[in-house]
């Protein structure tokens, strides 16, 4: 897929770019309003990761410009502003999703993947990966044509892993993805392990491969190998 990252903070921009640039993804970047405008005017992207506060302009104006030109680019807003008004303004203007800083790159990746899938499959949301077949609309998972029952959290975790395949996903990122802020009361993430154990078990029992590896004590990795 082809992405545009509009973010003025160099450190963050580079990290996002580095995280996304793999497996044939094309990642372009813009650091201010005018360079972003010229890019969106010249090229089309599967998804635009858009920071709202930019030098010389507001990211929401870029969004308005895109919508005025009836461009189909997916837009994900990233902002340090967490106020609901900003969020609603962004979504009302036609953004596909809104992510508050700070976030885990794996979370961003999962959200972008979801946007791109929605745009690409036009409602007919089917995700396949080797023997894994996921109907995103019905939230059904089949492995080698055998339906496998996943709980809501297991299903969400599986999608999260697939969106970040080949990447090490930290335990704290998984915890935040599944439980949100309320996870701060847990003093260990043991129950992440039990969810992952369940996913593995269900997949292997249905005749699939075990794709999930523990990654040096700090997280997990979904590998295709």
């Amino acid at each position, binding site marked *: 897929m082809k992405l545009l990252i509009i973010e003025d903070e160099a450190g*963050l921009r580079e990290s996002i770019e580095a995280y996304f640039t793999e497996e044939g993804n094309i990642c372009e970047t813009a650091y201010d309003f005018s360079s972003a405008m010229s890019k969106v005017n010249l090229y089309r992207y599967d998804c635009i990761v858009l920071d709202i506060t930019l030098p010389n302009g507001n990211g929401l104006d870029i969004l308005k410009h895109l919508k005025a030109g009836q461009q189909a680019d997916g837009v994900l807003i990233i902002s*340090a*502003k967490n106020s609901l008004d900003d969020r609603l303004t962004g979504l009302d203007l036609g953004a596909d999703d809104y992510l508050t*800083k700070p976030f885990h790159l794996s979370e961003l990746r999962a959200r972008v993947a979801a946007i791109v899938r929605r745009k690409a499959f036009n409602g007919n949301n089917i995700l396949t990966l080797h023997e894994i077949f996921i109907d995103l609309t019905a939230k059904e998972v089949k492995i080698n044509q055998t339906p496998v029952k996943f709980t809501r959290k297991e299903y969400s975790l599986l999608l999260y892993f697939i969106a970040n395949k080949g990447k090490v996903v*930290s335990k704290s990122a998984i915890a935040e993805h599944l439980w*949100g*802020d309320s996870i701060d009361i847990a003093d260990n993430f043991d129950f992440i392990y039990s969810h992952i154990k369940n996913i593995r078990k269900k997949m292997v029992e249905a005749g699939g491969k075990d794709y999930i590896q523990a990654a*040096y004590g700090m997280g997990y990795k979904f590998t295709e190998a």
Partner: protein
Amino acid sequence: MKLLDKYNRINISVTVVIMLVTGVTYYFTIHAILTHQVDKALVVEEREVFDYVQLNHHLPQVFRTNHQEIIFTPADDRVKRKFIDTSYRDTKELDLEPARAIITSVMVGPQLYKITVIQSTVETEDLIEDVFLITLILIFILVIALFLSNRLILRRMWQPFYTILNQLKVFNLAEDKTVASVPSTIDEFTELDQAVGIMATKAKDDYLNLKAFTENAAHELMTPISVINSKLDTLVQTGQFSDPQSKLLNDIYNTVARLTRLNKSMLLLTKIENGLIHDQQIVNLKELLRTSFYQYEELLGSLNIKLITQLADCEVSASLLLMEVLVNNLLSNAIRHNLPGGTISVVLDQQQLRISNTGKDGRIDIERVFKRFQKSSASEGIGLGLTICRQICNNYGFDLQYQFSENSHQFTVNFTVSE
């Protein structure tokens, strides 16, 4: 004691003392004047006797007139002329009356006579009594008049003061209301009013600046935290780490997560306090609680905490986001401060939400906990949870109560308090 009462008390007691002293002085003065008057009459009587003796060379015939009596008694020596207080026996009523007498002597031929002229002073005494009584009545009326006028006039005069005082009592920095000016014709009160107005405005400005600073600081921190977080995410992709290294990385992750939550809570609190969250809607609390229970499912399981619920349908008009925060904060507190194998009981009806949990700490000092960054030493939280809960409740006029009984902490949110 109120200024008015204190003033009245002093004023009236001073008045009474002065009046009493005046009354006593008055009494003795009048008494002296009237006695002097009687003495003069006695001297006139004495002179008449002398004149009569000089003219007729015998004693006058004695008539007993009303309230007066003249007694002649033969005497051997010349008696020293003097005035005395004595008593007089009334001829008709036969009772003793106070009297004044002059004792003197006269020579009738060779015989010396002692003359005693007694004049009853009963009328004088009556007069003095009357005067004294009138004085007392006057004092009494004066005191009452003073008391009433003080109460009425002073109360009215101090009215601006009490108005200002009441405004100060209800003055709240976080509220939008300012202190209204209280016009007054009294210079002191006008000055007080101006000083209070200036002070309130300044306090409010400072407070707003401070809040704006908190919000901006928290905002500005988000970007560097984002960078750290993203760099960490990138770093863990780079390769194999040893156990100590991965432990370090995990610690950094957790610390950054903690920093993020702290920052978010501060921002949220500032926003609630500033009334910046406006997405009021009908929130189904039963649904909300169910979602929360689902979120906490594994955590409850891992701590072996039993959840007892009794949920009726309840809808409130509030921000969904804030109600989520309220419910989640109360629930996570109930989990965090619970015992392994303890219980949490959640009861929801149309009036209130009651969350109680078993706990080890004993009673908590709730007013202290409601303050920012107050937490027990065992707590892993950031110390803003209950402050946020209370602020949310304040915002919607809910009443947040805490009770502790039989090792059970209970938080109750009453929804219908001020509706």
